[in-house]
């Protein structure tokens, strides 16, 4: 469990970027941290592996205070994938890129080979094994970055803005992938402001605004709450916009998938006509 207790943080004296944040990421959780740019999301997750230490309060990773462990020790458990893959890719080949962290964490050669094979397969990167990471397209780079972290099998996987610059297909593949590894029991935290992306994940949401957590709850609750969405400077999912006014006729508000929506509407046509 990752626990934040009354955490406040300032980069510069007097400017609090996190304000009194208390939260828990439990084992097996699938969590989306949402909020507008500058809300403090990246700052928050940098506390999870000790890159940043709270100015006030404390952070515990499996009961270890991050103040008393090194970033490397904590990262073994908490894998952080940064927003910009260009900030981490540096090796000559994709294979080496993935092996980098494994070497740092002291895996032996056989293990390194096995794990590299495994993540390359998992993220459909096999054909790029010998390619230079710097020549890949944006989407592929993001996948290599993710693979290079998944390789050491961190208990907690934290991904910062994985949907930025991605097209629809890439996003929906990513969603499937994350849902899959979450079902298999890994703890996954996604940082994003992409409402439609989160709407179709079955996850919990932690909504941040101006350094505070302003709401936390299941997707169905948070993404249907007009007030909250406004406070978080997000937008309602499109289908919620459609179903929200229909809720007085007894329709559910929390409709996120197109198939589900069309079935609902067709089945209840009669009721609609009367209304």
């Amino acid at each position, binding site marked *: 469990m990752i626990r934040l207790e009354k955490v406040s943080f300032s980069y510069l004296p007097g400017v609090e970027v996190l304000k009194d944040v208390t939260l828990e990421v439990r084992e097996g959780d699938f969590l989306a941290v949402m909020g507008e*740019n500058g809300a403090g999301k990246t700052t928050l997750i940098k506390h999870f592996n000790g890159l940043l230490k709270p100015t006030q309060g404390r952070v515990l990773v499996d009961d270890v205070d991050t103040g008393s462990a090194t970033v490397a020790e904590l990262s073994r458990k908490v894998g952080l994938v940064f927003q910009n893959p260009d900030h981490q890719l540096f090796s000559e080949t994709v294979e080496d890129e993935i092996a980098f962290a494994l070497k740092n964490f002291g895996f032996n050669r056989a293990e390194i080979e096995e794990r590299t094979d495994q993540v390359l397969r998992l993220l459909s990167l096999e054909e790029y094994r010998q390619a230079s990471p710097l020549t890949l397209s944006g989407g592929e780079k993001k996948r290599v970055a993710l693979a290079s972290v998944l390789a050491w099998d961190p208990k907690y996987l934290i991904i910062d803005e994985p949907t930025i610059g991605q097209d629809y297909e890439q996003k929906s593949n990513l969603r499937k992938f994350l849902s899959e590894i979450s079902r298999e029991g890994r703890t996954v935290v996604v940082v994003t402001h992409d409402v439609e992306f989160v709407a179709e994940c079955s996850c919990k949401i932690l909504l941040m605004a101006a350094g505070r957590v302003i709401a936390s709850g299941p997707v169905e609750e948070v993404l249907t709450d007009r007030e909250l969405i406004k406070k978080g400077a997000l937008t309602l999912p499109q289908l919620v916009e459609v179903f929200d006014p229909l809720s007085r006729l007894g329709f559910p508000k929390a409709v996120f998938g197109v198939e589900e929506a069309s079935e609902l509407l067709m089945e209840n046509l009669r009721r609609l006509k009367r209304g």
Partner: protein
Amino acid sequence: MIEIEELVYTYPEAGKPALKDVNLQIRKGEFVVLAGPSGCGKTTLCRCLNGLIPHFYGGDLSGKIQVAQLDVLSHPTRELAQHVGLVFQNPENQLFSLTVERDVAFGLENLGLPPAEIRRRIDWALEAVGIGKLKDSAPHELSGGEQQKAAIACVLAMRPSVMVFDEPTSFLDPASAKSIMETVAKLNRELGITVLMVEHRLEMALKHASRMVVMEKGGILADGDPREILSGAAEKLRGIGIPKVAELHRLLAEKNLIPPPVSLSPEEFSAKLMEALNR
């Protein structure tokens, strides 16, 4: 305004062409949204419109490109800059001065305008995109959305008749993205500027568009009225991420519950649904 005929382009040392036989005519005052999966050639097409391709990038180009009555192939980018403005994806790398004012001035100074005229245009352009108050701010003090608006003002101040936007909102959160789209729509509506915008957030962009062009693998897959295109075959458009209301509308239209063409916004859909039910 934009005339592209049989355009084929290959980057230097690339195996296959990035653009294959592209034909596209855009008239004055249109607002065209360009969609398509990553790597299909959208950015490449934008670069062709102000001559970055081929003058800056080199490579092999054949076909005809004319923008604002100028032949792109025989005019360097810096000359085209007064007629076609390009706004890029990453706002940070489009601002190079210490203040917004000086950044907007940069292009105007290049044109050799007198200081009084430069000052007039700076004020006008910043007001037009709604950041008049930020004139003396440094780029790093601005939010991503404000930076992008500053970048738009820089281009706008040069008074181009065509503006091309390459995924201007992809680094922004929903609220800032919406504000950028509205700004662009206003420039199109009130100043008559012809707009070509590459955008993944179709649910936001199509509301303002008069036309939609879909690319795939270096060629044009569909071109026409957004509602018409989205009402058609869903299969081949799968990759671009059809807005959910449009998809919902299409499914219901298939069952003859409501008439096509599809809606582009939740409000429009709700209204049409009610109308259909009351009939």
